[in-house]
């Protein structure tokens, strides 16, 4: 026997393994690249941050070159501003102007459109209003969403606008289940906690405080003032759940999902009052729908915006940066920079409604009320509209309108073509929602604004691949939308603290209307704030 030698050298073995690796990668790449698809049409957009941020830099704007007058000036064309305008023109006050910074009105309810479908950029549904929300029911009747409304019987809704079945599904442990509340694969203890929580909120839903009002109302300022219930606002929802012995992971996941969905905040950052309000404030009635049904359209609440826009078309001035709102002896003086012509105009109004975020309102209003909120917690959101050549399916329940993964940091996606009537199986648009709640808003905002399109595209598509393997192959377009200041989060103490009350009780010819004034960013609150401000300024506006 000669000397012992390894019969295969390490080098040979490595070469062999390398060959396998190269072969596998080469084949994979070859297959990926061979039927080469058209490149994905990708873009990253968002509200015009550069315009808004001019207010922060303290730059001096050009002096006004012209002056015009109007009875009521509305600063901001989001839901609150448009609702105020709608109410005023309905009361016969047509000497009004709505000044909007962006090229398009709508705020968080704006929408986009491509060759495949219209799609939301933010808010995408409206729950059926409570019977006592008469103004909103009136709006919906005017828009034809409600076909029969007599104020006595449950309204009849236009069926096409009610979210079609199947409305929701949840992906958990490899299978889609119907609804968003986890039901499959729960332990007995988890089921007990779900039952206990839902039983509790169900009784709260019908509970009235010592003033006879419901504990949780919509708009929230219609809620009971009973201190026993308002005390919920002093602790976080997470704390309250711990105190009550709620520990089931699936329940906590679901409740945090709800908080992130409506408030862009985690359980720890949400007031317990707001957390419970989400579950115990809805008492809708409808002749032809379940109480928990929602209204939706391909473009989400953009549909409502379009209808309001039609009614207010003569009063809308887009691309207007209002940089000063001052109380004068005769009324209100606004200085407004036209972002297209770069010309400042002086607008003399009898009254003004400042329907912008409070962080902006406090900068532009020279007489911003003392003690009113200046720093409101606003969570950044990333919304992606992903156009795909065919709708994804997956194991279990079929594709629904709202599709959520238990395992994803996102809130899932809604399908823009869900409300299509007839037989539709072609391309569609998925609207994917990601509230950036992992860090405090200011930190994550700066970070998010620095991320390039490629980052967001990879993040969203990687996440979607987890629930729909191969979906990347079907993507034809990707539109990212970064909401730097997405929406107000109701942190403990904000809703029933003293600061917000300053704005609600504020009198005078300058009124504030925004969901920041509520602490909850839902259509109903923006609408109610707009109407409150409009009703108040009516007394100052005398159309000559």
């Amino acid at each position, binding site marked *: 026997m000669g000397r012992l030698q390894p019969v295969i050298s390490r080098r040979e073995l490595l070469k*062999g393994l390398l060959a*396998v690796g190269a072969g*596998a990668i080469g084949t994979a790449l070859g297959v990926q690249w061979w039927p080469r698809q058209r490149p994905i049409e990708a873009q990253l957009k968002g509200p015009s941050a550069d315009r808004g941020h001019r207010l922060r830099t303290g730059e001096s704007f050009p002096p006004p070159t012209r002056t015009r007058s109007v009875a009521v000036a509305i600063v901001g064309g989001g839901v609150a501003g448009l609702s105020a305008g709608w109410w005023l023109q309905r009361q016969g006050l047509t000497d009004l102007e709505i000044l909007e910074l962006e090229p398009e009105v709508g705020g968080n309810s704006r929408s986009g459109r491509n060759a495949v479908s219209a799609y939301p950029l933010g808010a995408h549904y409206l729950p059926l209003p409570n019977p006592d929300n008469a103004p909103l029911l009136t709006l919906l009747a005017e828009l034809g969403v409600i076909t029969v409304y007599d104020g006595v019987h449950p309204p009849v809704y236009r*069926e096409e606008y009610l979210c079609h*079945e199947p409305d929701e599904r949840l992906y958990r442990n490899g299978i889609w289940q119907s609804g968003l509340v986890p039901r499959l694969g729960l332990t007995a203890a988890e089921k007990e906690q779900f039952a206990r929580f839902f039983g509790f909120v169900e009784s709260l839903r019908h509970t009235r405080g010592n003033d006879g009002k419901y504990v949780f109302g919509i708009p929230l300022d219609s809620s009971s003032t009973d201190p026993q219930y308002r005390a919920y606002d002093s602790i976080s929802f997470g704390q309250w759940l711990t105190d009550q012995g709620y520990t089931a992971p699936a329940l906590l996941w679901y409740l945090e999902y709800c908080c992130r969905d409506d408030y862009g905040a985690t359980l720890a950052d949400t007031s317990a009052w707001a957390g419970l309000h989400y579950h115990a404030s809805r008492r809708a009635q409808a002749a032809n*729908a379940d109480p928990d049904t929602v209204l939706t359209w391909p473009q989400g609440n953009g549909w409502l915006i379009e209808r309001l826009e039609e009614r207010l078309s003569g009063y809308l001035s887009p691309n207007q940066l209002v940089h000063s709102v001052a109380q004068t002896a005769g009324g209100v003086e606004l200085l407004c920079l036209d972002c297209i012509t770069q010309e400042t105009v002086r607008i003399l109004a009898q009254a003004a409604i400042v329907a912008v975020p409070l962080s902006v309102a406090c900068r532009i209003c020279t007489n911003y009320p003392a003690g009113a909120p200046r720093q409101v917690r606003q969570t950044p959101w990333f919304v992606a509209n992903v156009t795909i050549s065919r709708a994804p399916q997956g194991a279990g329940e079929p594709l629904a309108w709202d599709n959520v993964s238990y395992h994803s940091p996102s809130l899932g996606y809604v399908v823009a073509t869900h409300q299509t*009537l007839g*037989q539709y199986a072609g391309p569609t648009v998925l609207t994917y929602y990601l509230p950036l709640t992992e860090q405090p808003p200011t930190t994550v905002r700066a970070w998010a604004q620095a991320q390039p399109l490629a980052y967001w595209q990879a993040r969203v598509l990687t996440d979607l691949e987890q629930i729909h393997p191969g979906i990347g192959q079907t993507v034809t377009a990707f539109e990212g939308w970064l909401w730097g200041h997405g929406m107000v989060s109701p942190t403990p103490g904000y809703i029933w603290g003293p600061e917000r009350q300053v704005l609600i009780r504020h009198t005078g010819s300058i009124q504030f209307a925004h969901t920041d004034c509520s602490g909850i960013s839902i259509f109903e609150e923006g609408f109610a704030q707009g109407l409150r401000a409009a009703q108040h300024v009516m007394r100052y506006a005398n159309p000559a």
Partner: protein
Amino acid sequence: MPILLLVTVFVIATCGLVYELVAGALASYLLGDSVTQFSTVIGVYLFAMGVGSYLSQFVKHQVLSVFIRIELLIGLVGGCSAASMFLLFEVVSSFRVLLYGEVLLIGTLVGLEIPLLMRILRDRYTFDELIARVFTFDYIGALLASLLFPLVLVPYLGLMQTGFLFGAINVAVGVGVVLVFWRQLPRPRSLLWLGLVCFAVLLTGLALSERLLDWSERQAYAEPVVLARSTPYQRIVLTQSGARVRLFLNGNLQFSSDDEYRYHEALVHPGLAALPQAQRVLVLGGGDGMAVREVLRYPGVREVVLVDLDSAMTGLFHHNRLLADLNGGALGSPRVRVVNADAYQWLRTTDARFDFVVCDFPDPSNFSLGKLYSTAFYRQLRRVLAPGGRLVVQSTSPFVAPKSFWCVVATLQSAGLRTLPYHVHVPSFGEWGFVVAGTDSVDLPRQLPDGLRFLSLATLPGYFDFPPDMAPVPVSVNRLNNQALVHYFEREWAAYSR
């Protein structure tokens, strides 16, 4: 040259495992129960390899030449294995005999490879070197195959194509060995030709895979397929046996020419014969033109608008002679206008009014189809009804799916229509239900057109009687926002076909 032979080991190991995986996956697809299928296929395959190894000792002479022939044979048999199993699945009486027969054959041949190759290589390495090298490359090849198969081959190529591709690679190795050892082989030219022929067969198979798959699907129908076409909306398959023609959409029987007259006479006449003044008729769905044929029996009807999603469907039943004979050339009638559009979308935009509307949609088996049976849809239908007009809805089997059937009735009533449900027996379908509805009271016809083969005035009233096993049951109304009908339908038909 030794390197070439080691590469050969690597390739044949990859190919060998791919054949095994193809057989396992195919057995899982076709027979179900993947654990059992994979387990038995792998067991039989490994056993067969042992048989091959045993048999290798009987190869005494011309080892290299035998090895090359075996390579070519494996390439051919292994390469065609997926295709042959797909194609023969519907034909053979026992698929398992075919499956395990092929697995045994391939396994035996693969089992022969390595021992023969080691004998070829034995003079070039020491024994321990030889064992180590051959098995190292063998196992690395197996790793590559096991990774490629689920990640790349099945998702991007498909089983049949994978078989052909790896068969071709296997043959290519054989051909490569022929070329390299040309001088040491007796009659290398004939081996080369043999190899090239095998290669060509496998490449042809690869190119034709799509069509072969298509052909194999046709075997799924009990009778000879005379026409099959995929459209953006459905797969249309027509079978014919003697005079009997059957239409399948997505595998579901739509009509059999034996008894379709029962269905279509029952669909049209109870409603339309009661409207002697009817002039304009709308048919929604029913691209086969059979309902239109029945409508055209009424000389008073001046215009029939047929709205069907699929232009391929209406095109076939207009221009194909066999099919146009079935509907009596109805779609070529000057009184008929064919519109290829989505019924719901078209209905929303039309201003036309009709005296009679026929809804001949597929059963509400999914949420898209469920919308065509909703209150919202029926309200649209009501809008296009001329004063005194009526409509009829085919509404699945009141025997198999009573809740579904009575849900259609309740939904029509909820849309403000008066209803008159009835049922007939269609041998191909069983007991089948329909609902006539109108804004005014709905009554039975007093006369029927001449020439009907099924309906008669004498038997007609009986169809409007529902015996206790099909009697009305309490149900919800089908709305877009609850799709109650699809839920009923799924449950009832699942219970029936279980």
